[in-house]
């Protein structure tokens, strides 16, 4: 009797196998739920967000811009109005809320350029960086201090007081030179050069009528007569 039942059961075996496989494939339908979990693990994200490796200082950035390093791409994450008022040279504007728009993915999700994100300070730039980091974008940096520190170090550097080290004076002069590259003009420089020019002018001004005195070259007449 059992044999018969078994045989009957076995005749349906293909149907049973097929149904089991269909059920398992139904499990694949559950996978889209896991799309929310895109990106690197939360632990990795936390440790990346905590590390200061992503910061680039204003001095270093100024250096790269002046030497016209072509691999640096600047992205301003502030609003459009702030961007229009003043921004770093050749920076493009991606307001924070549009960061993940498809149009801008080209700038962020690539490995050729070093992208520097900046904002007025580094609060919003950091947020942008963390969002991009979860998606695994590489070569992203944050300008430490943002536009505020840019102003205080590059555009309008602090003159070091008399009691500071020589390094500070060197830094100040490099920063001053950088500020001139970025458009700041110094009236003291002009005064100096104008004062210098004046005496030179005076010296050459009186064009004294010079007479050309032909110098007769004397031919040496052979000594006549003998000794």
């Amino acid at each position, binding site marked *: 009797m059992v044999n018969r039942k078994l045989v009957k059961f076995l005749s349906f075996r293909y149907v049973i196998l097929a149904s089991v496989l269909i059920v398992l494939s139904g499990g694949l339908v559950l996978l889209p739920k896991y799309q929310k979990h895109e990106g690197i693990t939360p632990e990795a994200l936390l440790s990346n967000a905590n590390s200061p490796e992503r910061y680039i200082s204003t001095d270093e950035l100024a250096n790269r811009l002046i030497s016209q390093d072509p691999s640096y791409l600047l992205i301003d994450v502030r609003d459009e109005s702030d961007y229009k008022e003043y921004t770093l040279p050749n920076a493009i504007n991606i307001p924070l809320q549009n960061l993940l728009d498809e149009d801008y993915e080209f700038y962020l999700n690539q490995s050729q350029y070093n992208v520097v994100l900046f904002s007025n300070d580094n609060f919003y730039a950091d*947020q942008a960086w963390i969002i991009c980091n979860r998606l695994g974008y590489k070569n992203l940096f944050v300008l430490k201090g943002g536009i505020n520190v840019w102003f205080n170090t590059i555009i309008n550097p602090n003159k070091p007081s008399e009691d500071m080290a020589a390094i500070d004076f060197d830094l100040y002069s490099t920063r001053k030179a950088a500020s001139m590259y970025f458009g700041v003009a110094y009236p003291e420089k002009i005064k100096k050069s104008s004062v210098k020019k004046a005496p030179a002018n005076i010296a050459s001004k009186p064009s004294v009528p010079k007479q050309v005195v032909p110098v007769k070259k004397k031919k040496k007449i052979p000594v006549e007569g003998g000794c």
Partner: protein
Amino acid sequence: MKELEKTKRISIAAVLTILVVLIALLSYKKPSHLYAINSKAALEKITDINYLISQNEIDQRNQVLVDIRNSYEFDKGHMEHAINIPVSDILTDESSDILESFKENNKAIVLYGTNPTETIAPFMVLTQLGYDNLKILTVENSYYQNNLITKNVAAENKAPDINGFIQESIKKTKEAMDKAKAVPKPKITVTPKQIIPVKKKKKMPVEGGC
């Protein structure tokens, strides 16, 4: 006989596939932390919701202050009724339990650190793990004579008027240049120089003999 062989092979293959799938399912370890929202949703959240609060907006009954600095700093001085969860420990099991309990009691979690920038990392990670009701207290903490001084700051200060500054400097330079040009050049009295032709002495050839 051949038929039997074929069916035998099919059944063995089918059983093996099912076994493999079962083993995979059983050995699948659920990751301890799963994101609850994807990146786009996270971005919308942080740009739409105003999560910054200042010191006078602290509401002790519905909020819990979480100090994310390390335990040494916390022991030196912390804000009233604050608990300490250092940033590096935010994803440990016990911290997750603590945070979950707050979530269940419907208490808002307010993060603060030495400055607002410090709180961005834990804020972003926790938001993406699904904690709603997270806020950042925008304060700067410093120590003066072993006392904690907390003062309100803005998350980001307004941009300085750099363009104005540059234009100012250009204007000043122009003014200086104009001034320099307008300075009357001191009059130079040109004394007519007399040109005295220099008579070159002719060397008379030596006459006569030696």
